[in-house]
Each structure stands twice: as C-alpha cells, then as structure tokens.
C-alpha cells in the first residue's frame, strides 16, 4: 500500500503543476497598472504651449465639466491615428480637451497641429516626462477623463471608435 501512495502523489502533483502552467501560458505577461477609479488628479506646474506662461493644474481643471487629458507627441504614430477622434470630441460642448505635449520638439509639435488641426482647448509642455508619471501614465498616447478633479476613466493607448462612443456615453 505504501509504495502506491508515492506514485499517485507524484502524478497528482505534476498534473496540478502542469495545469497551472498551462493556464498561465494564456495569460498576458504584459502588466498594465490597475485602474483605480475616482482618484484625485495630481497637482503640478507646467508651461503653456503657445504663450510659454506658467500654468498650475488647479487653474486648468477648475470647472465642473468633463475634461479629457490627452498625452501626445508629434513623434508618436498612434497619436496621429487617434487625432481624428479627438477632433470629433472637440466639437462637443460639455467636454474640454487638454493636451500634454510629452517630450516633444516645439516646432514639430506645432507643425503637427497645423497639419492635423488643433482639438485642444489648452496644451502644456511635459518636456522631461515627469508630469506623465504624476498622472500614473507610462507611455503615449494615454488619456484621462476627469470630472470634479477626479479621474473617472483612464485610457491606455490610442482612442478608437469604440472608446469614443464610450466617452460620449459617459459624458451624456
């Protein structure tokens, strides 16, 4: 009897291990930070894009309407693709689009806006990328929907038709 327990134990153990690893194969190994809803927006100071004046985050997100903070750069190709959706959103009355120009060159960024049009109500610089970290972002493009100084939705990666619809529905 004793000799039989060991092989059974071995088979069971290995089957469990096999099952766990096999399941693990299907998991994505790319980690994305969990989206904690309703967190307060960070406070920071930055330079405005056109006037180069200092702006404070308290002055930007002052109203009670919805704000969409979009982190973008002229060198970022997905930003080009999502631009038409931002243009679409900019036509909506109850949402303000704020641009965060991430590690960009001013001339390139300006040309980008001249060529593709400017959906932003306000743009500020984030030359060293530290403001992006304050937001908890780690790449471009990334968007945050803000209401009453709280992040209500976070979008990693470019906007698309589905996300645009979701944002429109959210802000109804």
């Amino acid at each position, binding site marked *: 009897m004793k000799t039989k327990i060991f092989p059974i134990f071995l088979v069971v153990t290995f089957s469990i291990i096999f099952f766990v690893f096999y399941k693990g194969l299907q998991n994505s*190994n*790319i*980690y994305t*930070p*969990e989206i904690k809803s309703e967190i307060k927006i960070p406070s920071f100071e930055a330079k405005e894009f056109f006037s180069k004046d200092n702006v404070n985050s308290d002055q930007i997100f002052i109203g009670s309407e919805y704000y969409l903070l979009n982190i973008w750069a002229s060198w970022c190709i997905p930003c080009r693709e999502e631009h038409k959706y931002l243009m679409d959103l900019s036509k909506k009355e109850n949402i303000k689009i704020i641009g965060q120009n991430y*590690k960009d060159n001013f001339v390139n960024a300006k040309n980008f806006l001249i060529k593709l049009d400017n959906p932003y109500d306000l743009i500020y610089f984030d030359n*060293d*990328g*530290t403001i*992006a*970290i*304050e*937001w*908890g972002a*780690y*790449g471009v493009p990334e968007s945050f929907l803000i209401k009453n100084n709280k992040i209500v939705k976070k979008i990693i990666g470019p906007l698309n038709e589905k996300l645009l619809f979701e944002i429109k529905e959210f802000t109804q």
Partner: protein
Amino acid sequence: MNILKFLTYIIFLINFFSFDIKAQNLEIEITKNLRCLICQGQSVYDSDSEFANSLKILVEKKLNEGLNEKQIYEYLKNKYGDWILYDPGFSKNTYFLWLLPILMFIFGGAIILKKVILKKKL
C-alpha cells in the same frame, strides 16, 4: 565540525550577496529596485526607455524635495501598484510570496529529518 563549516559557508554567501547589492548611491539603489513598465524585466536603472529616463529624473527630484526611500516607493506604489517594486513589502497581496520559501524550507527539512530518522531506526 561539519556544521561549523557549513555555517561559515552560509555566512560568507550572505555577506557576498549583500555587498554586491549595496549600491553607493541612494538614487541608484532606488532606481534599481524599480521595474520599468515599458521594458518589463529590466529595472529602471538599467533601462534607457523614455519612461525609465523620466522616472530617474523624478526620483532625483523627490530626493531633493526631501522624501526618503520608503516615501518614494509609497508614492510610486500608489500610482502604479506593487508591480513597480522589485522588492514589494509585506502585505495581504504578497504574504504568500514571502512565506512560501519558508514553508518549503520547513517542509523539505521535515522530509529529510523523517528519512534520516527512519534510516537510523532500520
């Protein structure tokens, strides 16, 4: 005598590793313990991605502001979760991770002990 040799060997190993990890600079030490989220598997210190470079600047800024190592970890943990730390603290999410090696050690020890005792009895 054998046990004494074994113990000195273990002490030597522990010292060797801790000397290796100990960095001269606090900033380097912190960034070495931060995982780069763009190039996962590399530390922020080793990485040259945009994200890692920004994070290095931020750590320097926060140190200049007078935050200590723990406060910086806490700050980043709030923004990115436990995953950003290579050495996560003891919490309800990580207790299994921390206790597993100890459990395995005890379990293995018990097996060895049992085998040795059984052999002696025979």
